[in-house]
């Protein structure tokens, strides 16, 4: 469990980081952010990057601020930054605080980054689920320029994203939520802190006693987290409550294409999808 040899770089500016990345990316050079996914993979020699570009000392990447109607989260902002809901972030702040406690364990959250999670794209990543459910936008930068990628185009299956090897995910932009937006998160795993076997994040508003603008996202169930339009359709226009919530759960189970692992057959995750969706909805309503 000792990593294979690599060259370590610690640029201080974004420009230097991007120039370096452009140079080393073709030889499997990688960005090192919190190291909470990459370093274990290196210890197992599942990853053998030849160069590491450590972005932890890059000035400006730790920016966490509101830009108009989005919350901008820089590449070195740690999970732990969301432990306490910042009132300035409104409902979104509360949602992030609710979600973050399900990510790993305290020490890991003080190092791991939101952008690192998005770049790593584990099917059971809470932040990936959050990004897709809320409709976030990724800001990818190279030495040549920048582009914005909507979440819907970003996730491409298990640990696979639209990012190019020479692109740095400099920032993720999460839309703020209107006051009064309901949100609920439910995760199932065997032990506290483990990656989810299945989870759901939901938001909706209540207009005239009926659900409006429902967002239902599931994670850990399929290769990438995604929204479930069928579940959202089952909710919009209905009164919030057990009937609608269970219908949304059922609608989800009917359409998912679950991943399997040695312990878990597809049927298990299919059932679980219904459970986590309806429970997330119950939490939102509580």
């Amino acid at each position, binding site marked *: *469990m*000792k*990593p*294979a*040899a690599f060259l370590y770089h610690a640029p201080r500016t974004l420009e230097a980081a991007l120039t370096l990345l452009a140079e080393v990316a073709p030889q499997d050079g990688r960005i090192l952010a919190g190291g909470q996914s990459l370093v274990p993979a290196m210890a*197992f*020699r599942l990853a053998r990057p030849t160069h590491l570009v450590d972005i932890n000392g890059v000035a400006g990447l730790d920016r966490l601020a509101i830009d108009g109607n989005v919350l901008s989260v820089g590449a070195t902002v740690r999970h732990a930054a969301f432990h306490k809901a910042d009132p300035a972030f409104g409902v979104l702040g509360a949602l992030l605080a609710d979600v973050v406690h399900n990510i790993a364990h305290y020490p890991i959250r003080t190092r791991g980054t939101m952008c690192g999670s998005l770049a790593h794209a584990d099917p059971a990543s809470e932040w990936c689920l959050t990004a897709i459910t809320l409709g976030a936008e990724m800001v990818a930068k190279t030495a040549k320029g920048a582009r914005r990628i909507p979440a819907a185009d970003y996730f491409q299956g298990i640990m696979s994203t639209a990012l190019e090897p020479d692109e740095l995910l400099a920032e993720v932009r999460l839309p703020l939520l209107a006051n009064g937006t309901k949100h609920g998160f439910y995760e*199932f795993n*065997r*032990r*506290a*802190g*483990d*990656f989810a*076997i299945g989870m759901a994040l939901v938001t909706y508003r209540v207009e005239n006693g009926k659900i409006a603008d429902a967002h239902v996202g599931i994670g850990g169930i399929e290769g990438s987290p995604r929204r479930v339009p069928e579940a959202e359709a089952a909710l919009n226009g209905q009164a919030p409550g057990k009937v609608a919530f269970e219908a949304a759960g059922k609608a989800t189970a009917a359409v998912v294409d679950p991943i399997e692992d*040695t*312990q*878990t*057959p597809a049927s*298990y995750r299919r*059932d*679980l999808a219904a*459970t986590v969706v309806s429970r997330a909805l119950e939490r939102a309503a509580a």
Partner: protein
Amino acid sequence: MTDHFAGAKTYPVPPTTEQRTILGKRATRLEDPPLVSGRGRYAGDINFPRQLHMRMVRSSMANGTIKSVNVAEALKVPGVVAIWTHEDIKELGPVDFRADRGAEILKPYRQPVLAKGRARYVGDPIAAVFAEDPYVAEDAADLVEVEMEELPVVIDSWATPGEFEPGRSTEGALLKHSFGDIEAAFKKAHTIVELDLFTGRHSGVPMETRGALGYYDATKDILELHGAAKVPHRNRETLVKMLGRAPKGLHVHESHVGGGFGIRGELYPEDVLVLVAAMRLGRPIKWIEDRREHLMCANQGREQRHKCRIAADENGRVLGIDDEIFHDQGAYVRTHGANVANRTLCMMTGGYDIPAYRGIAHYRLTNKTPCATYRAPGRYESTFVRERLMDALADKMGLDRIELRRRNLITKAQMPYLIEFEEQGVEELLYDSGDYELLLDKGLKAFRWKEREAECAARRAKGEAVGIGIAFFVEESGRGPSDGAKMSVDVNGDVELITGGASLGQGFETSMAQIAAEALGVDYQKITVVHGQTDRIAQGIGAHAARATVLTGGAVNETALKLRAKALEFGAELLQLPVGDLDIVDGVIVKKGAPPGGPSLSLGDLAKKLAPGAKLLNGRDPHLAVEAWFNTDHTVFPYGIHFAQVRVDRQTGQTVCENFLIAYDIGRAVNPMMVEGQLVGGCVQGLGGALYEEFAYSESGEPLAVTFVDYLLPTMREAPQIDVMITEDAPSPMNPLGIKGAGEGGINGVGGAIASAIDDALGKAGAVVQLPVTPQRMKAMLA
């Protein structure tokens, strides 16, 4: 009462804690200061100048012929000093096991130090790389090319046996334990219940992985093994034989140990290799196992299938238990031979008075990691099976689970209770003392069984799946035959106590110091306890099978009493008082009942007066130093009951343990605080085996749990409220202190109690047939 104790030495009821000074008290642990201040010295902390690092090349195939091992590329890596395969150590025999019954027939199944033409599990060591640093060693190990030809694998122990090697079956042994007329029991039975049960493969996973350092001290011609644990003296004996050295030329040293649980400290191929390499390469060798290796290579356990049945008469009196066991030994026979299968067999009837029993165990080799003892070996398994049978029987007969148990418990009047097996050479069990029904009553009360029953029923009525469960068990500990200790007081009044015991973190130093302090009459903090050093004392039993406190404690007690007698003999002469008038209080010889300021002599001053050549000696040996022994032919049998309350989430299949009570009779506790620690720690491990931990394998023998992502140890956050009730109602008559072991009473019944509680929660007796009860399995059960 039959006199089963005839010929055995028995002891009167020992004093209670209240009548003692330090023995039996919640004394603060002596060993903690370095451990809690980051100054521990574990195997990884030990370094020798010029040391090389060893890295193993392991089989990635579960069963295969080794066609070739090409080390050419690996040898080119700068810093690599040597790479060995079996060819390089041909003269070394396989790693030996400690003698047990049927040992001869198991010998062909022993593990070679490096695979000999054939690898039999994923992780089997094939080559060893020695290099200047651990990174280089690992780089080079990656470059060793092993060419193998796949052979069919045996994964399930109950499948048709395969061929271990030409002409040799993978059924290593067929073991049997029985008494009474089992056929007749089932013929006349009123009710019979049959179950097909599985205990999953899991093991002790200490936070400190294995580690070994070989050092050859040429100035003294002594080969040293550092990083040892558990059984240093035993391992030294085996190593001396394997390496052909004189005993004086090989010593084993224990340092701090980060947990053992039966698996850490046994002799493994790597331990042998670091010694051979230290000699041959002329440099110290360090090997630290990584976690992945640990989860693939260190001893595993517990995997058994039981096709069992139980017979009872119309009153619910059990007439017999009949069990056919398929014991999965993994790829090789390791240090314990067939011990675990035998312990499963012999403890099957537990605390019940059962007239007939037949247990047959197919001891089978498979292509998985080898197995040996893990905390409560064979007992976690047999308690699960027996208590499953009892629950299912109660349900079928419409009897209350507690009532059925009560009707069958061995009574106090039946103690000592002898279980003799028909088979030649199978050791009898002599339960030394116990009041099982008393513990049952106390436990039910402490757990609030009746109230909880009602609470659970009320919650069930509201749709929850909650229930309570019970498992009754008998443990064994303190097996003989003998252990010794040395003790001396220096001129400062400091006491050195040398034992052949071992400490795995359980508080060995504290408990030995408490025993010695009580007997001698000194402050326990004045005592330095030496353990795990083969060069300090010629013999030692180490720390296993809940033996240390009973057997080594017995020796320490004898030694301290002998030292006390010696001190008083001289004290009497110096103080001019009869021995009977003297006492030792806080390290000072005083006149009993005399007011402060009376005649006194400190042990330190006495030690000064006993220097060689002192007049006072008058022909007697100098120094305040003695050595003494404790002998016993008999094992002691603590017993306990586990009570659990669980909640099952029908949607996700998750089982959550809400509450747990361990009721345990220990005879006499040396230190209740440490006993509680042992019991609670064991209990959490037991929950691991019941709900979380499993070494699963694919059909081709690939291990599926080689990291902590897949091998789920319960953490603080999964641990329920665990209450402990220690009773001292049945001190052992087999040792002067009345003590019984504590190491395994926390884990023994957990699988059984959790299964019982789940059945209750689901309202379906006998529902749980397999451990661990994972959410996925639960969903399948509910479907």
